[in-house]
């Protein structure tokens, strides 16, 4: 009897010790809901420590698709958003979830595909035309299919091309419902075309036979914006610290840091805040 009692006591003690280490007092932090492209590129690893050093505020990043990021914010589970889907952002603002929307930086989308290029899109600078050729050739195309900013952009391009790609879903058009990186991995495996943001592509290490084929269409412009969440609607939001972060991103210092971020000598995000302060 004694033996089993001490066994239970040991378990309880261990449990208490572990729980105790878990509920250590948390410092000052905000939760940033953002996109896989910004995380996968390494931008946050580079940028956020600077902000934390300056303000003492830790930024905890939850990287999901833009659609899911906006949903997190609508549930009050994030303090600030950094996303890239203007239409979705405007809807979010008009519903009163956001206090302010500031444009921070941009980059562009590119179309990548197999080096053999069965749809002959290499060198085109008209994304809609490229999409038409892919559809005509019934060449494999992998879609994010996850309601992310990139996915929404891709759907707008199909619309511009006048093609109902979803009707081909399951044949040459494959919706994987995954983040950008996972989608690129699938495209590599299927020798397929896909639309990706340039930052994720530049830092992606498993390219296989994929090559960058189409770029430069003005429609491929990709704007990122930071949105503070409305504390009236979501009382748990840390509004003042979130504002400090949003203001810092568009400040001269934040903008300069974003512009100086490079991978293999290539800049991945171009700061374009309209009203740099400080």
């Amino acid at each position, binding site marked *: 009897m004694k033996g089993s009692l001490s066994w239970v006591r040991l*378990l309880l003690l261990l449990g208490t010790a572990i729980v105790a280490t*878990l509920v250590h007092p948390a410092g000052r932090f905000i939760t940033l809901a953002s996109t896989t492209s910004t995380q996968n590129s390494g931008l946050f*690893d580079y940028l956020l420590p600077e902000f934390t050093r300056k303000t003492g505020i830790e930024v905890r990043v939850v*990287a999901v698709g833009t659609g899911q990021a906006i949903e997190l914010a609508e549930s009050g589970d994030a303090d600030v958003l950094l996303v890239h889907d203007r239409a979705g952002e405007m809807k979010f603002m008009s519903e009163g979830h956001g206090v302010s929307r500031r444009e921070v930086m941009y980059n562009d989308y590119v179309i990548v595909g197999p080096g053999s290029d069965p749809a002959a899109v290499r060198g085109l600078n008209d994304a809609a035309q490229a999409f038409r050729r892919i559809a005509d050739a019934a060449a494999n195309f992998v879609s994010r299919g996850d309601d992310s900013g990139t996915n929404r952009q891709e759907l707008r391009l199909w619309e511009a091309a006048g093609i109902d790609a979803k009707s081909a879903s399951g044949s040459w058009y494959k919706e994987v419902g995954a983040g*950008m*990186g996972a989608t*690129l991995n699938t495209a590599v495996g299927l020798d397929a075309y896909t639309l990706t943001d340039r930052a994720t592509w530049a830092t992606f290490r*498993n390219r296989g036979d994929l090559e960058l084929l189409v770029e430069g269409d003005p429609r491929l412009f990709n704007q990122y914006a930071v949105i503070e969440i409305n504390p009236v609607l979501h009382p748990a939001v840390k509004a003042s610290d979130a504002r400090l972060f949003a203001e810092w991103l568009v400040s001269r210092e934040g903008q300069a840091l974003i512009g100086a971020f490079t991978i293999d000598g290539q800049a991945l995000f171009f700061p374009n805040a309209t009203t740099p302060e400080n």
Partner: protein
Amino acid sequence: MREMSEAVAAAVDLVARADPELVEIVLLSLRVSVSAVIIAALIGIPAGAALAMFRFPGRQGLVIAVNALMGLPPVVVGLCVYLLVSRSGPLGNWGILFTAPAMIIAQTILIVPIVTALSRGVIEDLSTELSEQLRSLGVGTSRAMLTLIREARYRLVTAVLAGFGRAIAEVGAVLIVGGNIAHHTRVMTTAIALETSRGNLALALGLGLILIAVSLAINALVYLTSGIARRRAGA
């Protein structure tokens, strides 16, 4: 195959450097999964024993349900816990979304059925073996239950280890309720998923090898200590 050798090299390199980020991730994985296992054992072993010992209407249905719940999809568990602890959910004011406690809750829910079902099996077998003696001693069912748990403790270790294996390996639940936040809720499995999505397949695989090694070490530790305890107890 080139990936495999690169993965081994990546794993060896990370371990050799005692990479601080890796250490942090491994420790968090262990903290979350060990906590979940302890809570699940405190719930699941008594529940399993009760299911084995007591006869009540609906018992068979409950046994079948618990067995079926061993196959709970982690993503579904994660989603349910997310809806509970989200700021707009019923437990929103706890403010534990995207924290380790939320991950522990999710993993606990995931493995309580495993520990319960396996414990029930162990205790039921033992109770058939020992029913004569227990009856001759004239002990009540509750008392007999405690005796059986004590007698079965070394076999119950396997039930608990099965739960631990499930907890440390799952990614779906902790990804949703933890958010894979660097230095905060990033564990082995979510780090592997992240590196895969970055196309760092060798690094992802290397982390996978480390996860397997850690899991192996824990199992060996528990197995050997329980073996020593068993010999000491002369059981």
